[in-house]
């Protein structure tokens, strides 16, 4: 039973990690129907920014708590700036282009950003400073749930609640929902669609940056390539949950994380990803629009 609980929490942490990235995918997709392949790279840049800032601050002897706060803010600010710029440069001009053009643009952006960080920084793996200390009260259960697992779980939950609140009750949230439903109508009722889309990118990127910081701190290392696999997995999770749906992204991520964890634990980690993708195929066969996705209405 212990083993089951261990795997369960491991899967939960992993799922929460995916969720923080998947939210950005799903928000962007929900609004402009674009698979933003560069999102994984935004996450990587967030992690890198927090790495750089945190290391600089720790060299200059700042206390840990202030490092965490400043590095987190910096990561969110700069990632958002990158998300905003990428949208403006690579996606906005393509809004009326054929469906696949923005996808290729996104793939190009992803390759570009990876190599940008590779050239500006380094190809080596770098040690990420430990931003989450071992809490003493976690010690008795540390072999099951560590302090960083706890922080990741709590953060994801908070982000989830905050995001739901934002979408449901704020003005920008309302505008987002309207834009997602019908762009033309949204314009007609006086919504600045361009601004809403920018806001979506900014929020999604900030979430990815926070995710990047937490995950890098949890794993303890970072390099320019980390965005790729995390991005693909998070994207899978978003689709699994029903792309475009925010609770769907979280549910999909948790399901994916747990599946991988149990597949490794009870079967073999050799085929961990095979299980993950097979699950995706199975779910999509029976529920073609994902777990919580709305079935597309066909217009004739």
């Amino acid at each position: 039973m212990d083993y089951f609980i261990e795997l369960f929490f491991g899967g939960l942490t992993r799922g929460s990690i995916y969720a923080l990235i998947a939210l950005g995918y799903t928000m962007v997709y929900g609004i402009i129907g674009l698979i933003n392949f560069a999102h994984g790279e935004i996450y990587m840049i967030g992690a890198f920014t927090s790495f750089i800032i945190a290391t600089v601050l720790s060299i200059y002897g700042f206390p840990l708590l202030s490092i965490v706060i400043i590095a987190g803010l910096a990561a969110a600010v700069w990632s958002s700036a990158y998300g905003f710029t990428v949208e403006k440069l690579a996606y906005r001009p393509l809004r009326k282009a054929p469906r696949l053009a923005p996808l290729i643009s996104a793939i190009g952006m992803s390759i570009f950003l990876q190599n940008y960080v590779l050239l500006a920084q380094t190809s080596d793996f770098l040690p990420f400073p430990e931003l989450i200390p071992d809490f003493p009260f976690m010690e008795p259960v540390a072999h099951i749930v560590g302090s960083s697992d706890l922080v990741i779980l709590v953060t994801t939950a908070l982000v989830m609640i905050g995001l739901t609140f934002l979408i449901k009750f704020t003005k920008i949230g309302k505008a987002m929902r309207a834009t997602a439903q019908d762009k033309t109508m949204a314009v007609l009722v006086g919504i600045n669609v361009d601004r809403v889309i920018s806001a979506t990118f900014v929020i999604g990127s900030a979430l990815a940056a926070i995710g990047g910081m937490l995950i890098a701190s949890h794993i303890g290392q970072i390099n320019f390539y980390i965005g790729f696999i995390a991005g693909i997995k998070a994207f899978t999770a978003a689709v699994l949950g029903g792309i475009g749906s925010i609770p769907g992204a979280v549910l999909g991520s948790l399901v994916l994380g747990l599946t991988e964890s149990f597949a490794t634990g009870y079967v073999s980690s050799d085929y961990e990803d095979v299980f993950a993708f097979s699950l995706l195929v199975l779910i999509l066969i029976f529920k073609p629009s994902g777990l919580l996705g709305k079935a597309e209405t066909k217009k004739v």
Partner: protein
Amino acid sequence: MFPVKELKRSALISLWFAFLTFPIMVIKVNPIERTVDWRWDNMFFIALGSFVISILAKVYLLRKERLSGRKKVIKVVNEPFVHRILREPRFLYPLCLAVLVFAVAFPYFFSTYQTNIMTTALMYVVLGLGLNIVVGVAGLLDLGYVAFYAVGAYSYALLNLHFGMGFWAVLPIGGLFAAFLGILLGFPVLRLRGDYLAIVTLGFGEIIRLILENWNDFSSGPSGIANIPRPSFFGMDMNFESGIIYIYYIVVALVIFTIFVVNRLQDSRLGRAWLALREDEIACQAMGIDKTKTKLIAFSLGAFWAGIVGVIFAAKTTFVNPASFTFLESAIILSIVVLGGMGSIVGVIFGALILILMPEYLRALSEYRMLAFGGILVVMMVFKPDGIISNVRRSYRFKKQSTISE
């Protein structure tokens, strides 16, 4: 004159980029030695560079605006220049002949390396044309195309290893295996639409790669299969150089064959059905087209070409391992199709040649190569989202003499 307002805007843009790239470009930390390197000069270059680029972009846009303002009348959907030329027999035949002669003579005028690279590029032409059937013509977004390529490559490697089968025997078999797999994959997922299909095919590509990586007894795992023989020429052994040239001719022949088949297909009943499917599934069904069958044929035909090229890949590289069949490969083939112009055969050929030859000739830029590659993809899409040669469907319209004479 260039307006001052625009200069101010460019200055703002350059400030923004200086801010944007600040942590990554300026600060370099060494976490072990605990030192920080402030590279302020980088910030200066970024600011200057973005300033210049933004001005150039603005100039380009202004000029384009002015041009399009003047020529509004003709700006109806024009068939691309190349397509128009190619419809004229008096241009077509000589040019066709010239290129053919050039292709045949190529290995005699260029080095082995150039021939080798050209072979690779031509292989991607075939891959692009194959994927074009699925994505460009039938409109099914496939992100796992590389799986079929892998099936072809491993068919040859394994059939040769275990049964000693030769290249020519495996060539059709590899294609058929891939086509069969295409149908197998097609059945469950064809209910899915658009992006859901994309992610499932992506997953499928990964599954195939993971199986090759993990199932040692079957595929020798990640260490791969080495010493795969090159194609034989009536039992003759060839040295390395003539081997490369031989494969080159095989691929040239394959390209011609592929163009022939794909071209015939596009204008066939089936091709029309695919186009209809891409434009509107429901209307297509209402016209009495069997949706499932049509999609499955598209999938398996697309896969077939990938399988064939896979066999050639194994023969050319003489070594296969799963590392050659990653998602990035699928992304590149897809980029070829989209960049070239979806649905257009000439476009795909151009796309493949540009995308595959570019990194090779960008080698001079060595480390900036992939950066440039990514950047060019973005720029290309932004300025020409329809691809290099967009596939405008032939249409007939009444032309007034006076408007064309301009």
